[in-house]
C-alpha cells in the first residue's frame, strides 16, 4: 500500500466517520500510542474539513493496562493526554494496525479511567485479522490477509506524508507490497 492509497483510505474513513455522527460536536479522537497518534491527528484534520469545526484529539498510552507485562521487559511508557472530559462524548479510538485486539482491550480499560463516553468506536488503517478477543473495528482503511507471524509495518515520512504499508512475510523477510 503506497502513500497516495493510504491518503485515499484515510479520506474515505473520514467521510464515513463524519456521516455517522448524530452529534458531531461531541466527537473526540483518541490515538493509541504510538502508531495511532499520527493517524488520529491526520483523520481529525480531514473530519474538520468535512464538519467545519475543530475536533479534539487525545493521545492514549496503554502500556500500564497491558495483559502481558509479566512476560516481557518493561515496555517504554509514552504520554497520555486527553484534552477534554470524555464523559457523554463519542470517543473514536484510532490505531494504525488491528491485530490480536489486545491493545484495543487495554485502550478501552485505560479510557475508563478518564470518564464514561456515551459511545466508543474504533478506526484503524489496517485490519490484519487474527483476533484473540471479540473486538472489531467500526472503520477500516484496508483489510489484509496475513499469516499469524507476518509483520505489518506502517511507515510515515516527514511532512504530512504516509510513506507505505509493508507486509513482511515470516518465511522470507524481503517483504512485499500487498
Amino acid at each position, binding site marked *: 500500500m503506497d502513500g497516495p492509497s493510504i491518503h485515499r483510505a484515510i479520506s474515505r474513513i473520514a467521510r464515513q466517520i463524519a456521516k455517522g455522527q448524530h452529534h458531531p460536536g461531541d466527537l473526540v479522537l483518541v490515538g493509541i500510542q504510538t502508531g495511532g497518534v499520527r493517524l488520529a491527528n491526520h483523520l481529525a484534520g480531514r473530519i474538520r474539513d468535512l464538519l467545519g469545526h475543530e475536533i479534539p484529539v487525545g493521545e492514549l*498510552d496503554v*502500556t*500500564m*493496562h*497491558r495483559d502481558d*507485562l*509479566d512476560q*516481557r*521487559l*518493561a*515496555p*517504554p*511508557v*509514552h*504520554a*497520555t*493526554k486527553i484534552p477534554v472530559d470524555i464523559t457523554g462524548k463519542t470517543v473514536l479510538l484510532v490505531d494504525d494496525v488491528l491485530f490480536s485486539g489486545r491493545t484495543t482491550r487495554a485502550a478501552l*480499560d*485505560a479510557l*475508563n*479511567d*478518564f*470518564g464514561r463516553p456515551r459511545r466508543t468506536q474504533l478506526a484503524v488503517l489496517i485490519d490484519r485479522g487474527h483476533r484473540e478477543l471479540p473486538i472489531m473495528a467500526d472503520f477500516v482503511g484496508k483489510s489484509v490477509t496475513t499469516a499469524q507471524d507476518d509483520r505489518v509495518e506502517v511507515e510515515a515520512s516527514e511532512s504530512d506524508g504516509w510513506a507505505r504499508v509493508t507486509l513482511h512475510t515470516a518465511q522470507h523477510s524481503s517483504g512485499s507490497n500487498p
Partner: protein
Amino acid sequence: MTWTRKDLLDIQSLSLEEITTVLDTASAFKAVGQRVIKKVPALRGKSVVNLFVEPSTRTRISFEVAAQRLSADVINFTTEASSLKKGETLKDTALNLQALNADFIIIRHSAAGAPHFLSRVLNAHVINAGDGAHEHPTQALLDAFTIREKKGRISGLNVTILGDILYSRVARSNIWAMRKLGANVTLCGPPTLVPRAFEQMGCRVTSDINAAIGDADVINLLRIQHERQRKTMFPSLTEYTSLFGLTKARLADLRPDALIMHPGPINRGVEIDSEVADGSRSVILEQVANGLAVRMAALFLVNGGRGPQEVDADRTAALAA
C-alpha cells in the same frame, strides 16, 4: 531504551541510559497522579513487602502509595513487631516473605550491601530503600528527576551537596547520579564530614560555603546524621549552622534561579532556616511528590526485568527445544 535488571540496588552500577529510562518512565507516571483516577493496573495481583529494618516515614509511605497506585498489594514490615527481634537472620526473614508470595521486597537496612545480598538469595525483585551509608538510589533518581524537570537538563549544571557527606547514602547515590548525568559536583561541609577522598569520585571538595554556593545551580542540603555518628564530628550545632547552614542571610549570595533541595527530614534552624525551606527557590515538597512517580517507575521497570536464575532456565528450555 530498555531495562533488563531484576532489581534496583544502587546508582553506581547503572548506565546513563538506564538512569534516563527511569526518569523518562517516571514522567509518564507523574501524569497518572494528575488524573481523576490515579491508579493503573500494571502490578495487579502482585505483593510488595516494605521490609524496613531502619526507621523511615517518607520513603516507606512513598513506596506504599506508589505500589498501591500500580494496583499491587502492600505489606508493611516493622522490626519492632518481627522475628528479627527474636534473632532470625535477614536471609531467613526474606525467604519467609518470599514463601508468602512477596513479588517485590523494598528493603531499608543499616548494613551496607544488605539489598545486594538479598538480591542474590531471592527470586523476588529487590529495591534498595537505603542501606547504611552506602546508597539510596530512588532518592538520587527523584532528585535528578526534579532537577531535570525544573532546569530542563542536568549536564553542565553546578550541583552543590552541602552537609554531612561522610555518613550520607543520599550523598553517595547523588554523586554517582550527577556525575553520570554530566553535572559538576561540589561537596561542602566540615572537613571531618567531607573528607578529601571524595575527590576520587570526581567531585570538588571544599569547606568554604561561599565558594560552594555562589555559582551553584542546585544546592542539595543534607541532614546531620546524628544516629550514624559514633563521635562528635564538629564542636556544636550552633557552630555548624553559622559555618554551613543555609541561612536567610546567605540567600542573597545564591543565584536567583538556584534550586534548594533537601531529602528530608529537615532540621529547621540547623542546616536550613525556615525562610529558606519555605521560600520560592525551595523545591523540597516537589521532591516528595516526584518521589512517588520515580518509585512507580522503579517498581514498573524491575517487574519486567529477570534475574540470572530465570535467564538460565530460559536458556535451558531453549536448548531443549
